[in-house]
Every structure is written in C-alpha cells, then in structure tokens.
C-alpha cells in the first residue's frame, strides 16, 4: 500500500504535468466570437474544406483596459520592413500628428492620429531617442498601448544635412516650374518632407 503510494503520486504528478504541457502545445489564443461565427457559417456551406484562419489567430491578445492608470506606456513602432520597437515600455512619446506634435503619456485617452513627416521622440527615463518618420498613423489605446505605423523611420543622427538642403532646393525649384497638378502635388510633398527634415535637424 505504501509502495503503491509514490507510484500513484508519480502518475498523478505526471498526468498534471502532461496536462500542463498540453496547454502549452495549444498556445493559440481562444477564438473570438466573430471567428466562431465565421467558422460555423463556413462549415455549413462548405463542409469538406477546413475554414481559412484569420489574423486574430496569429496575434497575441492585447491586455485589457486597466482600472488605474499604468506607470509606463507600451510602444510599438512598426515599418513595412521591420518593427523598430515592439512592446517597449517608455514614459512618454511625442508624435508628429497633422494637427501638431502630440505628447502621449500613460493613461492617454484613446486616439487615432494621422501623422505628417516629422520627428517622433521616445522618452524613457533620461534617454530620448528621436526618429524621423515619413508619415503614417498612430493609435493610442485605452490600455496604454501606443501603435505607431510609419513607412520609413530613421534615427535623426543618420540624416545628412547637406543632402537635405540640396533636396529642399531641388523640390522648391520643381514646385516653381511645375505645370500639371500631379507635378505640383509631387513637388509640394517633396518640399514638405524636406522642410520637415530641415526643422528636425535644426530644431
């Protein structure tokens, strides 16, 4: 009876650990209500083929809205070519929205902001890292997570001031000599970006 005891405990423990391991194996988050509706509708119409997966199956679920204001802001800065910051905890970010530079602190109200070319500064303690963004969108969620999606972002110290001046002069010349609307728009965009770059380097 006593000899059987440890074996029984061992089997219980192994069963528990196996259950635990099984939980890890199915690491995907639970299907949301919309997905299960889709899956059911699919199965009714097309029973032979498995339904396709949807993006929420590949994403880690976002943290829920906390009741108190958290101390840090979680920032994700993504570009088409890389994620520069993902899940970084910082104190404050200043984003270049079209209505002006906007500071985002933890507990900021939920916002969708369109961005113009300008500087994004990330403040963490005493470090400030500045990136020049080419434009995009910034979402601030109620759970103090900020997503910044831009097409290009370069650290400010990698920008060459001479090339900026040259580009600015070139596009201003193009703007003056532009004839069609398309050319004017393109030249205007070039002038905007280069003057923002200029302001970034000097300011």
């Amino acid at each position: 009876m006593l000899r059987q005891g440890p074996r029984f405990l061992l089997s219980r423990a192994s069963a528990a650990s196996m259950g635990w391991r099984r939980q890890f194996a199915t690491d995907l988050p639970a299907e949301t209500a919309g997905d299960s509706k889709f899956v059911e509708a699919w199965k009714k119409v097309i029973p032979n083929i498995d339904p396709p997966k949807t993006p929420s199956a590949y994403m880690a679920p976002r943290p829920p809205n906390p009741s108190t204001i958290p101390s840090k802001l979680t920032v994700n800065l993504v570009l088409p070519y890389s994620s520069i910051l993902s899940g970084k905890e910082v104190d404050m970010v200043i984003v270049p929205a079209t209505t002006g530079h906007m500071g985002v602190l933890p507990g900021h109200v939920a916002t969708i902001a369109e961005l113009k070319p300008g500087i994004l500064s990330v403040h963490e303690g005493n470090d400030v890292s500045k990136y020049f963004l080419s434009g995009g969108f910034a979402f601030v969620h109620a759970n103090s997570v900020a997503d910044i999606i831009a097409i290009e972002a370069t650290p400010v110290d990698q920008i060459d001031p001479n090339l900026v001046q040259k580009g600015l002069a070139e596009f201003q010349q193009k703007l003056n000599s532009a004839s069609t609307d398309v050319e004017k728009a393109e030249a205007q965009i070039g002038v905007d970006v280069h003057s923002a770059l200029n302001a970034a380097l000097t300011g």
Partner: protein
Amino acid sequence: MAMAALRREGRRIAAPLINPHPINPLRSSLASSDREHTLLGVRSISTQVVRNRMKSVRNIQKITKAMKMVAASKLRAIQTKAENSRGLWQPFTALLGDTPSVDVKKNVIVTISSDKGLCGGINSTSVKISRGLHKLNAGPEKECKYVILGEKAKAQLVRDSKKDIELAFTELQKNPLNYTQVAVLADDILKNVEYDALRIVFNKFQSVVAFVPTTSTVLSPEVVEREAEAGGKLGELDSYEIEGGETKSEVLQNLTEFQFSCVMFNAMLENACSEQGARMSAMDSSSRNAGDMLDRLTLTYNRTRQASITTELIEIISGASALEG
C-alpha cells in the same frame, strides 16, 4: 533495320527530356520495340532503350535538385522580409478587430497566387478557399467579385467564374517586392473596384513545410462606421478621439486605405515565402521519386544485360554441341 528503328526510338526518348510525363512516350516506344522483337521471336527489351530512359531520368533528377536549391536560396532571402513585416498588420487588427463574418453587399475577394508553377498545391488551395468564400457570401442582394494576383489563380478561376473577375494582375515578382510597388497596386485596386469588404486570401508561411490558408478582411470606411454604431467588435471605435484631418470620415478613409496596403504587403510576402517553400518540397519529392525510378531501371538494365549475355552463350554452346554431335 531493327537497329535503325531502335536508334530512332532512342532519339524520340531523348527529345522530351523535361517532359513531366516521360513515361508515356517511353511506354509506347518500349511496347513497339517489344512488338518488333516478338515478331522476330525474341522476347527482351533492348538495353539501349533502358539506358536512354535512365539518362533522361537522371537529368530530371539533376534539374529538380537544382530547382530545390534555387528555391531554398530565394526563400532565405524573402523569409526575413516576411517576418519583419509581420508587425505591420497587428495594430490594425488590434484597433479594428477581425471581422470575417461581416455581412455586406459588395464583397471583393483578392486572391494572391504565384505566376510560376511546380509549387505544390498552394495555388489550388487558395482558389478553393476563394471559391468557398464566394459561395459563403453569395446571396440574393449580395455580389461577390474577384481580383486576382498571379497567373495560376487566373487560369483556374477563368474557367468557371469569368464574369466575376474584376481585375487581374500578373508578373508581380519580376522585381523584389517592396512597399512602394504594393502601395501602387493597392491604390489601383481601390480606385477601380467598388467594395464594402475586401477579403484577401493567401497562404501564410508557418514553416518550410507548413502553409496555412488565411483570409484577412478589410472593410470600407462606410462599413466601419456602420459596424461601430452597431456595436460588437468595432463598438469601441467611437470612443477614440480623432486627431488630424477635417472630418472623421476622411481619417477613416485614409485609415482603411492604409490598412489595405499594409495587409496586402504582408500577404504578398507571406505568399511568396509559401510558394518557395512549397516548391522546395515539391522538387525534393520529385528528386526522390526520380532516384527511386533510377534504382528500378538499373535493376531492369542489369537483368536485361545478363539475359542477353545468357542468350548469346546459349546460342554459342548449342551451336558448338550441334557441330560436335
């Protein structure tokens, strides 16, 4: 005369070297050479025939091995890009949610496929899923159109859904994929197609041997507003303050267009990775099959050779014993 016929047979076998079905011409030629021999009273396949067949199978094996190496190197190049672009669509799904079961009048299914073949079953899978989505979203007042990227899906869908195809784009992979190209493509699609919901069908690259068919849904700004008012996943959208732009609808329009181009970029990269991975495994199994076939042919060749030697010996010995006796 028999030798001339066999030589002709040999040339006919060597010609279709990159024929996907090398068996058929061979089978007919083997049968005909067999018939010739049986007419003369000898039942054996000539070693020349088997040797020619072995040569062609060996060439096929080399070619498929080389194609596998090329696909592996292309995969390595594009895999890092695809993995880096995975963060791009996540903020949009976090904000706007994932709504594959949304009920709208105008559905557009964007099917992403490859231009080149020999890549396993991924294009057929994408087309099956697209057809499934079409069936799912068909209804009395609803319409469902296709926008096709890539030759292979076009070839399959043109057969039965020709009237539903709005746009087709091919030769997208001539230059390496970059965001500017995809942005222009997305702009093209958005301008020319009326849509309430865009459903992008592609194969997500999970690993070199696993490709998961996936569909992402991008809604038009009007539908986003409608769903936000209706509540549910997008219900929290109203609580977001809008900065920039004059009106909320303008910002929403920019947002949905941006979302479409970002999701398309990631989808095209993932599909390209899946294509190269599928091609690798298809070429690998092809080389392995060619190797098996080569082993079997070698055995046949040896048997044939030994049989002809034995026949010669028998003839000599029986001739000698006839002279003696």
